């Protein structure tokens, strides 16, 4: 089993091809799983995928234009490791489709073979600054298998009628265990899922230890730096002018009309950083902290208590001069309204630290106070910087993240000893 990787393919669009590219992606978006160009549903390790055509000037006039107003084609894939296998699978399964899609981009070879396609894709791989995974190590086959397992267990209990009425929880659990054990298609569930590869775990452990270690070694400098930073922070928090974000009803309607088809939604925002070196440095530090916490703290089904986000990532975007814009993408359960309410009600301070450097973010106090506690200002900020997701694909569109967690717990509870109370709690998952 393996961990998850964030693949990003990013390529500049040839200006004269932008219209055709938009038309092509619109057609693809009608059937993300099995469209003729890139049938994402055929990729064996991809949880989510999206295509963005990011047009610097098209959606948000405050954005720095990328080059001479050039648009960028961005394809993101959230997949099980190794990511390079997914890139190869893409080339093997969708070679002509890649030509069709990336043929709109500068630098794409005219008549590439498989090698040429692979080389192009590898040359266009970009990295994410922060990559959040709801449950690190839970692979696509595992998620699908555990969903089947739940369906089977639910059906089994439904079929038992009143047979369990006077049984103990332990007896019901035993019945479920023997049912699963006797079914060749389910017996795998009696074993624990494999852990991510040893090399990955060692690498992550080293990173987890090394970062605090370096900070401790540099403690005097860190403390000094923090002091200077806090003073500058307070000065900016007082002095910065924060323009009101005005929402355009027609744009809100366009965005809304592509949301809430299934339990999951896709969110994309692109926001420039606040001006000045201070915010540039703060943003870099914040991305590093975000990276650290996403890799080592929020790895088990909860983003600081929030259980609705499947995958999320931050990428810096735009030219290498001055402060760049931040591209944020996520897949979450429920409506944007509930997503925002969760942020405001439960993790406002986290949002302050990760979004607080972006233009239009409501005023913070010591960074962790106010900010997203300002409900109106925060919702306007989020919606105001949202851009359309031109296409997105989900491998398990009807499963909420909490359901994935419950399914995994259900499977884990099929093995090992349990007290009667534990068995009762376990049966409540059904």
């Amino acid at each position: 089993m393996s961990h998850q990787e964030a693949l990003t393919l990013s390529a500049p669009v040839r200006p004269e091809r932008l219209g055709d590219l938009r038309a092509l992606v619109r057609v693809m978006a009608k059937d993300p799983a099995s469209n003729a160009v890139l049938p994402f549903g055929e990729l064996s390790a991809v949880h989510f995928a999206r295509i963005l055509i990011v047009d610097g000037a098209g959606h948000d006039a405050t954005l720095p234009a990328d080059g001479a107003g050039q648009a960028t084609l961005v394809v993101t894939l959230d997949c099980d490791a190794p990511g390079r296998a997914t890139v190869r699978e893409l080339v093997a399964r969708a070679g002509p489709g890649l030509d069709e899609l990336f043929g709109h981009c500068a630098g794409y070879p005219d008549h590439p073979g498989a090698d040429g396609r692979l080389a192009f894709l590898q040359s266009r791989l970009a990295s994410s600054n922060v990559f959040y995974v709801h449950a690190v190590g839970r692979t696509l086959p595992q998620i699908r298998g555990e969903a089947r397992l739940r369906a089977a267990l639910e059906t089994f209990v439904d079929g038992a009628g009143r047979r369990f009425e006077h049984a103990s929880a332990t007896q019901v659990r035993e019945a479920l265990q023997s049912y699963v054990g006797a079914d060749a298609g389910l017996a795998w569930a009696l074993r624990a899922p494999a852990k991510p590869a040893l090399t990955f775990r060692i690498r992550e452990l080293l990173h987890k230890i090394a970062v605090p270690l370096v900070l401790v070694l540099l403690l005097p400098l860190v403390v000094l730096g923090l002091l200077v930073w806090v003073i500058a922070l307070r000065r900016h928090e007082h002095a910065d002018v924060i323009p009101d974000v005005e929402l355009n009803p027609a744009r809100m309607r366009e965005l809304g009309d592509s949301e809430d088809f299934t339990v999951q939604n896709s969110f994309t925002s692109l926001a420039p950083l606040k001006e000045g070196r201070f915010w540039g440095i703060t943003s870099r530090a914040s991305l590093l902290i975000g990276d650290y916490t996403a890799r080592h703290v929020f790895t088990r089904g909860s983003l600081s208590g929030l259980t609705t986000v499947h995958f999320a990532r931050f990428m810096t975007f735009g030219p290498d001069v001055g402060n760049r814009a931040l591209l944020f993408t996520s897949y979450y359960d429920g409506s944007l309204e509930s997503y925002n309410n969760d942020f405001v009600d439960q993790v406002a301070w986290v949002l302050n630290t990760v979004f607080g450097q972006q233009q239009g973010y409501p005023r913070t106090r010591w960074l962790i106070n106010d900010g997203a506690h300002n409900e109106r200002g925060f919702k306007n900020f989020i919606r105001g910087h949202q851009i359309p997701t031109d296409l997105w694909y989900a491998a398990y569109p009807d499963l909420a993240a909490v359901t994935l967690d419950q399914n995994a717990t259900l499977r884990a509870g099929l093995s090992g000893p349990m007290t009667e109370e534990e068995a009762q709690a376990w049966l409540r998952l059904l």
Partner: protein
Amino acid sequence: MASAALTGASRAARDARDERVDEDDVQALVLQGYGKLRAAAFLVLELGGTAQAWLTSLVGQVTAGGGRPDGTALNVAFTASGLAELGLPPGVIAGFSIEFQEGMTSPHRRRLLGDEGAAAPENWAWGGGGAASDGPPVDALLMLYASDEARLAALVAEQRKAATAAGVRVLITLDTHDIGFGEHFGFRDGLSQPALLGTGRPVGDTPERDRLAPGEFLLGYLNEHGQHQRTPLVDPAADPDRLLAEDASGSGRRDFGRNGSYTVVRTLSQDVSAFWGFMDGATRGADDTSDQAAMTALAAHMVGRWPSGAALTLAPDKDLPELAEVNDFAYHAEDGHGLGCPIGAHVRRANPRDSLPPKPGEAGSIAVNKRHRLLRRGRPYGAPIDVDTALAQAGTAGSAVAGEDRRGLHFIALCADIARQFEFITHTWALNPHFAGLCDDADPILGGHQPNGKTFTTQATPVRHRVHDVPPFVTVRGGAYFFMPGMRALRYLATPHRR
């Protein structure tokens, strides 16, 4: 860090608690449900170019304040198109919430609200002809109340006449039927209402979790986030007579929204035969005979209350009418696993009290819950039908004929933020098949027209029971988002010189 959020919330609530509502400027329906005025009818109106004259003569008849009217009452509310028709400039209307401007029937909002299939706006009796089709725009709602049917009939006739004379067209009259304090499936309704703070009315024994800042229901006041809701503002030059109040958030402009409330209206047709027919079919014994007690119990588990109104959390095994009005309970400590009131029961979804994150059972969860409440002012329509008659009709041609609408509820809810209150409750709580850890259960009462979530789970020991393929019991037949302005705003709207 969560304590920072709680501190902010409690500070906000404290500030909000100090505010006094200017009751004389509030249309009375916000402050009371007119329980003694048993007769009611609602006129759905299309305004014409001469509507301002109609409004001018209407303003003096509008019921305002906290005093109990005797005899009759009248309230009025407008859609975005109605306000435009009355000459409110686009720049002011842009200050209303996005969802109010967009209306209830856009592709997105119909998905949020589950208005699909037979419940799609195309099939509505009123309000469905928004931007999507050529139907007449709904501009206004005239709400008429009287102590008896005779007085109501006179009031309706008088108002129809006045409207017609002024070129205002009555698109449909929504009649109501006094069936006591219940709804047509046979359950007591309207038991759990939040109390608005800052009014003269004592909140007395209202539990703390039901006491809400006025800004949750009225524009111009602090809400449970300690903030003022977005509100439509008017340039002082456009209000030379100072008819409107100053903007409370200090912009220097005048607040058209102050003391007004968003008014969500939905005509919910109830198929009583389908309801009891399903309960009967799902609870029949091995010999295929009906089991009256089991039928009632299943229905009560879906509703979350027994027919008397007694909450299942307090009366898990059978109806205890003496508990009908006992409403001071929470779910987490008393019924955390849904063994009394199922997790997916209608009332538990509509108001989960203390049971959801971030801190089930604690103040943090109650604070979040307060941000998603509604003042309900609905009235049933259509003659009631008893269970036996409903069962006799079940499965016959009398049941669930498309387009047929014999009885139901004109659901009316007041709030200050349609997206955070009404739409959130409907989408995130009621219709969400994954609500609170469930897997495939939408609201058993409201969720019937959704593609998913047709399972209903009753939590039990050692293991839950489920019923499958719960059919639609409730079908939306009309609706719109209105705004019920304060009295000063109404006078402003009715003043011609402004243009």
